[in-house]
């Protein structure tokens, strides 16, 4: 264990997500290098950065898929995420959307959402579980939110790309997470879908904390939130989009290219 460094400018107390000095390397390649940032409850943050900046690795570390070599990752100031596996972290209330939409293609839209319901997810419990009326209502609600009510009996595999993205977001909402990690939600979407997705995320951010990883600058601007610029596994700049867009360092490594 590393010695705790002197007071950092970021507060761990009352935070929902707290990363401090996180480093990960693969065969000498440093994917994350002393990465530190904080997300407050109810806050939405967008993370941008060039390819290989460590965005996906950061997601992996938070969700328990990759163990950091050094550094701390805390959820709600109390839970050390580096010790837990993916399923435990999900059940704590951290949802993750993949870059490529992944839904259960041979299940119906409705079943996809039912499977994502918050609750006891042990094998024994699911073997004998029955859908309660309350839960059915919740599913209907979410179907409305993600605009898939009339598609609820479709196999998820038959949905369009954008619809899959929404279904996946809907699945995350079913878990009722306190923190949502969203990886490139508008990649491959039409312009109309992109606008709708931005609306959807802003709606979600009213009740939960959201971290969005994104390439699309227009989309990030429409989110109207704080931005973190990642470069070589390290935070290069942080602030409003306009502020970081004018940061000479950022222009140099990312925007200016």
């Amino acid at each position, binding site marked *: 264990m590393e010695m705790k460094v002197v007071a950092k400018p970021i507060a761990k107390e009352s935070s929902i997500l707290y990363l401090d000095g996180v480093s990960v390397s693969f065969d000498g390649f440093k994917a994350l290098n002393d990465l530190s940032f904080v997300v407050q409850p109810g806050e939405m943050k967008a993370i941008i950065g060039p390819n290989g900046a460590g965005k996906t690795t950061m997601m992996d570390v938070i*969700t328990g898929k990759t163990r950091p070599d050094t550094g701390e990752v805390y959820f709600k100031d109390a839970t050390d995420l580096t010790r837990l596996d993916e399923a435990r972290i999900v059940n704590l209330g951290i949802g993750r959307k993949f870059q490529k939409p992944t*839904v*259960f293609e041979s*299940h119906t839209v409705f079943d996809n959402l039912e499977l994502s319901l918050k609750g006891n*997810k042990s094998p024994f419990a699911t*073997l004998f579980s029955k859908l309660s009326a309350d839960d059915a209502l919740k599913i209907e609600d979410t179907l409305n939110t993600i605009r898939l009510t009339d598609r609820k*009996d479709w196999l998820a595999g038959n949905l369009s790309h954008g619809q899959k993205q929404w279904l996946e977001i809907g699945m995350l909402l079913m878990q009722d997470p306190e923190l949502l990690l969203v990886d490139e939600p508008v990649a491959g979407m039409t312009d109309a879908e992109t606008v709708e997705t931005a609306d959807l995320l802003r709606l979600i951010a009213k009740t939960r904390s959201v971290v969005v990883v994104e390439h699309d600058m227009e989309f990030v601007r429409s989110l109207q939130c704080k931005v973190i610029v990642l470069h070589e596994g390290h935070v290069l700049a942080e602030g409003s989009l306009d502020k970081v867009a004018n940061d000479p360092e950022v222009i140099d490594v990312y925007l200016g290219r």
Partner: protein
Amino acid sequence: MKNKNNKALGPFFSLITDLPGGGKAFMGILLAVALYTVIGNTLIPESSFAHVPTYMVTLMGKYLCYALLALSVDLIWGYCGILSLGHGAFFSLGGYAMGMYLMRQIGDRGVYGNPELPDFMVFLNWQELPWYWSGFDNFFVAALMVMLVPGLLAFVFGWFAFRSRVTGVYFSIITQAMTYALLLAFFRNDMGFGGNNGLTDFKDLLGFDLRSDGMRLGLFVGSAVAVALGYLICAFITRSKFGRVLIAIRDAESRTRFTGYRVEFYKLSVFVISAVLAGIAGAFYVPQVGIINPSEFSPANSIEVVIWVAVGGRGTLWGAVLGAVLVNWGKSYFTGAFPEAWLYLLGGLFVCTTLFLPKGIVGTVPEWWAKIKLRLGRFKPDLIQTGKGDM
């Protein structure tokens, strides 16, 4: 899914009444075949062409054991995407447990007349029964072991494998290595399971002569009941939320994990259930064929089971049963009529099924049917939209 008006019939009947149309049809066919076999063997005179000779009863009993084994493989492969190339091992272990009981039933009627020791132990100059043979003179202990031993092996093996996330072909290869290691082990005389001769020369089961017609019919009926129960259990599992999680794991393991399911526990549970079913299949198989030897562990056997399921249609339970019966019927026919041709046929089956029938007969034929209907202009959109019809 919905359980409306059959609560009074008890949970068991709800298993049947909850089945979708295809499942009910399957149970009906199974019942009809079993009933006809019983009647055809006992009531219809031998001179009639409708008579079912006893050898045919035993042959069908054997097919039913294979069908149960195929169900167990389908449960994990078809629904959870785990390709086990070691299910023959669980089948054989169940068979050996039953064989050990049957060995003890021989008593002093063996060649050497030793009341305690099976012949092969006397032959090896053993003085007393090894500890792991004790208790096998009791049918209920043996029946318990039929389920416990494969289940325990599956638990230990799966515990290590799934926890360290050994997946896909890696899992297949190490399950193959597992059954290969068991094959080598059971060939050894000092393992105490009869070496390469295995266990044989059985006399009776629960006091009834194994070679009597009544016993053979009884074993057939037992196998049919086992397949029916196995089918019901599998149907219950696959239609429950648990079963839908399995399919979710098959299609998107990572997503399932990030939806909050402990994937390894699910895999472990279904692997153990499947191994127990395979063990039971082996236990019904051994008294009907009269022998169990290490060659049952050979990797080729386990892989053959997979092709039964693939031919029938994986991910559909009655496809597995259909595949097992069809392929084995073909095997019986061809190894008798054209022994040279059988391996060509089996090899061709492996290649052609994976290339041209990836969903098996049950999955592909309705698809063709739908296409024909589409051509005829009578297309119903719900055919491709709901995924629940393929039980």
